[in-house]
């Protein structure tokens, strides 16, 4: 093992780690605001990569139809709920229409654009639109009515949502994997290191997203409202912050991060309908390193997971996953010994 091998492994580890970092941040975000341990985070990654792959073939991805179906269900639920509360038909219908609006527009554009084979950038934007719209709908359908349930109940729901989304993924995308074309085909040779354009994009976009998220939470009213909900749900509600709206916004952001991760990772590996789970799980390990509440520690943890994975597969490829997931044990021990951990609801 010499310096060139170390540098190649470092680059590989950091590139994967950057994606894990995004997913780790999304996991922390969802957990702090809604107390949901969001296992299906990885599914958004697979949906993102595969939806783009189907757009590339000029067909309408099955996710678009699923989006419409879920939107209709959510709208019906909203109409019913508003009707029960207000007994006011126009108001109820308006609530339903509001839920239906964004997914319907996104689906309509997708169906119109799919056979026209626009440039990859347009297709990528559409993909982000479609997958991001899933976020609030998943929250509305699966979690909203259980918002006050225990973390354990929410975790069980997450497992259910994960299986449902993987199964639907198989239905829409088939069993075989896809590999998307690179967004940037450049190659730079720095000594033994071959830096690909895609690796630069992955690291760049991850950094940009992390900075954006930080700005959003520090400097916007909406971000502050989400943070308030994370700190104390009841208190935030008393201050007039709707916890349902906060939950839906959080899930939209999680789905957005997932979709972007999918686009980033799609050109570097073969993505299968069930690939997302393991990728998301590594993001989850990173989030656990951050104690499910610290963004910077989670991001550093993700890079650490990426590096461990790269070096682990070099030394003992048969035990790679074992090494990565065994990591979580000493960390949990350390956290429970060292952690002055308090929980507010």
């Amino acid at each position, binding site marked *: 093992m010499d310096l060139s091998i170390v540098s190649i492994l470092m680059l590989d580890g950091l590139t994967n780690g950057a994606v894990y970092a995004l997913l780790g941040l999304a996991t922390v975000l969802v957990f702090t605001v809604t107390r949901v341990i969001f296992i299906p985070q990885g599914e958004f990654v697979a949906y993102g990569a595969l939806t783009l792959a189907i757009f590339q073939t000029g067909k309408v991805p099955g996710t678009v139809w699923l989006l419409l179906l879920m939107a209709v269900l959510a709208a019906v639920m909203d109409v019913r709920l508003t009707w029960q509360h207000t007994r006011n038909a126009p108001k109820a219908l308006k609530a339903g229409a509001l839920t239906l609006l964004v997914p319907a527009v996104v689906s309509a554009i997708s169906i119109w654009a799919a056979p026209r084979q626009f440039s990859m950038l347009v297709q990528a934007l559409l993909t982000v639109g479609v997958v991001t719209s899933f976020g609030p709908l998943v929250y509305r359908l699966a979690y909203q009515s259980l918002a006050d349930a225990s973390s354990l109940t929410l975790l069980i729901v997450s497992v259910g949502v994960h299986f449902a989304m993987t199964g639907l993924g198989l239905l829409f995308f088939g069993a075989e994997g896809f590999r998307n074309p690179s967004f940037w085909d450049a190659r730079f040779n720095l000594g033994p290191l071959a830096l690909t354009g895609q690796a630069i994009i992955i690291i760049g976009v991850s950094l940009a997203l992390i900075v954006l998220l930080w700005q959003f939470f520090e400097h916007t009213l909406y971000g502050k409202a989400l943070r308030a909900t994370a700190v104390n749900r009841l208190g935030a509600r008393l201050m007039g912050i709707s916890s349902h709206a906060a939950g839906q916004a959080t899930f939209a952001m999680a789905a957005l991060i997932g979709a972007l991760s999918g686009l980033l990772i799609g050109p570097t590996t073969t993505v299968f309908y*069930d690939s997302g789970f393991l990728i998301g799980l590594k993001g989850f390990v990173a989030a656990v390193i951050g104690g499910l509440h610290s963004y910077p520690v989670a991001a550093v943890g993700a890079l650490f997971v990426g590096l461990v994975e790269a070096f682990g597969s070099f030394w003992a490829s048969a035990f790679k996953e074992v090494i990565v997931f065994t990591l979580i044990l000493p960390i949990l021990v350390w956290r429970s010994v060292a952690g002055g951990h308090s929980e507010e609801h």
Partner: protein
Amino acid sequence: MKFTKTLITAAAALAICGTALADITIGVVAPLTGPASGLGIPTGNQVKLWPTSIAGEKLKVIVLDDATDPTNGTKIAKRFVTEDKVDVIMGSVATPVAIPVAAVAEESGTPQLSWSPAVLPPGKDKWTFRMPQSNAVMAHAMVGLMKKQGIKTVGFLGYTDAYGESWLKDFTAEAEKNGIKVIATERFARSDTSVTAQALKLTSANPDAMLIVASGSGAAMPHMAIVDRGYKGKIYQTHAAASRDLMRVGGKAVEGAFVVSGPAVIAEQLPDSHPSKKVATEFVVQYEKAYGPGSRNQFAGHAYDSILVLEKAVPIALKKAKPGTPEFRAALRDAFETMGRTTLSHGVLNWTKDDHWGYTNETGVMLKVVNGDWKVE
């Protein structure tokens, strides 16, 4: 009232038994979902094209999804033998599932046509017959070509599951006989996001050739990673990768790859003298008529061949017993062993008492990827 209920139950039970006695029941266990669904779905497709009767007996086919989960596969197999009283179990296509299913077949005395090259301990395969070529038979064809090309050292990059493991074992044995050494062994999983590290280690060992053991579109990623590291030697792939998904995902990177395959997927390119030419062509025409041009694959071929095997064995077994009875199942098992040479789309099969693999060493065909298509080497 109670009496009527009992009467109805009895009648229902009789009715169920009645149909079970008249038909030949086949229990198909296949991974229609989960990691091996790329192998299982094509077999499920072929099952839909099966005939409705064999030797004048109606066929009753039950297809259940094992989700590539060994526990699930065992449950399904147990259901087949206790509730459905199947005459023959077929599947699974996933090796890790086929192995526990074989245990149920053995326990219950039900013949199993395994659609994966499941390696079982000696004496445990009394009731299990494999439809695919053994990895050893395929390794024979592969090593033959390697020897011709003057390859002395090989790097191995395979799945961390039973498929990868049994290939490593069979290939190493066959290679050593021919003076070829496996000098580096690395593993990966289908869902890995990167195999850069493994590729790095393998290329730094600099073997004459690489062997990648993976299935379907999962075989493309490791191939591309090795090419990406500037490896200039020859790259070999196994018969689970012999589908068009390899070229679809791998594109230019898999040009020049050597892939071992059964004869079924290259029916047109077989010489007229090849015994499987006719059967393989029939299979390809039937399958592609239903599922589109280029959709042919190794796994659907096994499902196709299973019916050919039954068509030969069932008439022999029917002379001894009626379907649905333990005697019929035993007779069917004996018929598999004694029916002699059978020409299938995947080659010529000859099961005997001591050999439940059956294919001869000449079955494997080496293909090369040229301009995104198969060419017989």
